[in-house]
């Protein structure tokens, strides 16, 4: 996997296409994970991830290296995902059968999550920040500091979100929260 330094070196040498060919595999999962954590929808997250890479392709020649490459990419992804989420929320109403089904699916989840599907529903029902933190932390196994960078939050705040998310999930997994500390 290419490092940021290698990608930046290619950009500065005017070899944008080669830089982009390294950038996509290096950031694909992280961009997708960030989008998925915010949008909670795999197809929408993939579509958004593709749009983000198109934006990066267009903006890469103007990247001046003042911000870290990763910070720049996460900011673009976060903004695009939040914008897409706002658009989607405006378009969706509670009379939508798909939304009703989603709500009913969450509320009818058993008290103890015995299978992955039930656990997923519990994760989706977590507060936004907790869900995003837990998704980014486990999806691509990123360290807390990088999850914090991706979410644009301080590391300690992310640790708190992760702790609370684990405590909520411990309850539905039928294990004591202190066992996950």
């Amino acid at each position, binding site marked *: 996997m290419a490092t940021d330094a290698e990608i930046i070196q290619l950009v500065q040498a005017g070899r944008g296409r080669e830089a982009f060919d390294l950038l996509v595999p290096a950031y694909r*999962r992280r961009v997708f994970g960030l989008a998925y954590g915010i949008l909670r929808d795999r197809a929408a997250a993939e579509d958004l991830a593709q749009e983000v*890479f198109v934006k990066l392709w267009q903006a890469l020649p103007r990247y001046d290296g003042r911000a870290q490459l990763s910070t720049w990419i996460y900011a673009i992804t976060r903004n695009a995902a939040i914008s897409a989420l706002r658009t989607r929320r405006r378009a969706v109403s509670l009379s939508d059968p798909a939304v009703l089904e989603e709500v009913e699916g969450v509320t009818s989840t058993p008290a103890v999550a015995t299978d992955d599907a039930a656990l997923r529903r519990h994760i989706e029902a977590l507060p936004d920040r907790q869900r995003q933190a837990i998704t980014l932390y486990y999806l691509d196994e990123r360290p807390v500091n990088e999850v914090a960078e991706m979410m644009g939050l301080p590391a300690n705040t992310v640790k708190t979100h992760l702790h609370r998310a684990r405590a909520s999930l411990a309850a539905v*997994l039928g294990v004591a929260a202190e066992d996950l500390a």
Partner: protein
Amino acid sequence: MSGGDRGRADFDARMRRLFADVDTAPGFQARVMQRVAARSAAPRADLRAQFERTRAHATRNLVRQAWMNAATAVGVGAGGIALVWRHRLEITQSVQAGLAAAADSGVLIGIALVVLGAGLWPALRRSVTPL
């Protein structure tokens, strides 16, 4: 390993398994490049469409201008004819008086010379203009 550590390790392993299959579909990069190519082609298509719109607009303006010119010419012509028709008696009398005056003097010869000079003037001018 304590119970808490094992519990956390089990939880982490289960969460990693849970998210292991959450990924983009195969061929992600190729699809991104298709979008990039489509966006790169879009501005050319936009320019072509803009050119066509500008040309159609210019054509409409020219046709409108031509109709305006024709209408103006017809209006001025009709106005002129109406004016002549309205004052036809005065014009006839003036022409007759003029012809009568020309017939009994050198005015007719003078007019003939002026007309002849005006007709020959372009030819005379060409002959004296250096190449």
